[in-house]
């Protein structure tokens, strides 16, 4: 029976040690920020949030999902702050009573990447709508987010301007990956296809394959970000005070400066534009 005792001791030891393996879960102050994969993948949060935590002692926990999912989570009350980049959805969020108020934070832009060989011959064109029409008419492979995200909605908005019904072409040259920005870029690189991406994810993406920037600079590729506190009147458990501290910080001169100073490979990425 000696063996049984050893076995039992090992088991108990293992169970006892487990709680010790947890590190920061017992943080007293934290807020949950529902944000998007585009923003997170750029590395911005990794760069600037530690400053906020250092200063206030509040741990900002970012859940990075598609804009649609982020908004749904915020509506459910599973987040304290919403930080996404689709103006129409954000305004609806506030007007429907889920959010307190929307603040401008920063903007960057979208670009269209494509294979170096540029089969649709759109490189350097200034008019993004015309370029996309060329891609569609040439039936050149194009990968879409297809996931109801801010980027996806932006993309669909642009397709609408071309007058082409891409949904009906889904599965042919137009492919909907249903993934985050990174996953979509992986797919586009693998298929040598055109893709609409936010500059942040693009700059930090390491698997470009044969893809290069084809179209940028069109004002319609403007990508503004907004931050909203989830309304505590709607969800009383929301950490309104701490969440507001975050919002105040990110639109403050310090937060704005940090955003402006964030670079990838020496290139600036976001332009801070909080008002006042």
């Amino acid at each position, binding site marked *: 029976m000696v*063996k*049984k005792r*050893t*076995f039992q001791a*090992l088991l108990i030891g*293992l*169970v006892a040690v*487990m*709680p010790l*393996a*947890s*590190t*920061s*879960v017992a943080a007293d102050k934290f807020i*949950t920020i529902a944000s998007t*994969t585009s923003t997170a*993948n750029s590395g911005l949060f*990794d760069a600037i949030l530690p400053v906020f935590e250092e200063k206030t002692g509040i741990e900002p*926990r*970012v*859940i*990075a*999902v598609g804009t649609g999912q982020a908004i749904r*989570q915020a*509506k*459910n*009350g*599973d987040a304290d702050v919403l930080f996404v980049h689709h103006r129409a959805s954000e305004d609806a969020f506030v007007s429907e009573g889920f959010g307190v108020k929307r603040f401008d934070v920063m903007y960057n832009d979208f670009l269209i990447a494509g294979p170096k060989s540029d089969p649709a011959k759109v490189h350097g064109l200034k008019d993004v709508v015309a370029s996309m029409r060329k891609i569609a008419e040439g039936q050149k492979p194009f990968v879409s987010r297809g996931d109801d995200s801010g980027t996806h909605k932006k993309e669909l908005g642009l397709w609408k301007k071309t007058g082409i019904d891409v949904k009906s072409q889904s599965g042919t040259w137009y492919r909907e990956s249903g*993934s*985050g*920005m*990174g*996953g979509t*870029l*992986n797919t586009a*690189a693998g298929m040598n296809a055109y893709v609409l991406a936010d500059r942040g994810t693009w700059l*930090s*993406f*390491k*698997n*470009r394959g044969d893809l290069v920037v084809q179209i940028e600079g069109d004002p319609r590729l403007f990508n503004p970000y907004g931050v909203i506190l989830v309304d505590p009147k709607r*969800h009383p*458990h929301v950490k309104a005070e701490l969440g507001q501290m975050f919002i105040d910080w990110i639109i403050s001169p310090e937060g704005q400066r940090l955003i402006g100073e964030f670079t990838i490979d020496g290139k600036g990425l976001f332009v801070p534009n909080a008002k006042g």
Partner: protein
Amino acid sequence: MSDFAAAFSSAVSLIVGLDAGLAEIVLLSLRISLSAVFIATLGAATAIFRFPGRMGIVVVLNALMGLPPVVVGLIVYLLLSRAGPFGVLGLLFTPTAMIIAQAVLIFPIIAALTRQVVEDLWEEYSEQLQSLGATPARAMPTLLWDARFSLLTSILAGFGRASAEVGAVMIVGGNIDHVTRVMTTAIALEVSKGDLALALGLGMILIALSLGVTGAAFVIREAARG
């Protein structure tokens, strides 16, 4: 091929450099999967005791072994969301939620395999144990102990499934840095960033971990067999 070489070297440098971030993620992964295994095993033992051999339960259990992790994650998410029935507990996006999701996921495997083992053993033992005066309740711990080697295999199967899955823990945990990021979600993140070499490197570490746990279990088993 260069990806594999790059992957291997990034894995080695992470380990050799005793990367703190890596250690944190590894410990959390182990903690969550082992906790889930522990809970699922207790649940399985209870279930077997309370519902021995009921045909319907057996069929359902065996079917549930094929539960897609992402579906389990979704269901647990809906239950734990603030908008859901257990929202007040505030468990979403915590390691506890991940443990719950994984425990639910592996419970059918452990229960089905354990039940089979116990049933086979009961066939062999029942008359003698009855003769000695053991009631079924009293016999249960005896059967479980005597089946310990086979049970270890089923527990390892559960651990394997738990530590390998990414869908459920991604949804209920949110892959929050320093809080709910485990090996598999970290790998998924690196893939989405296009850093395939690092992702593969982490994958190699994850496999090594799995080997380590299985190997340790094997050693314990052989030592105990004595």
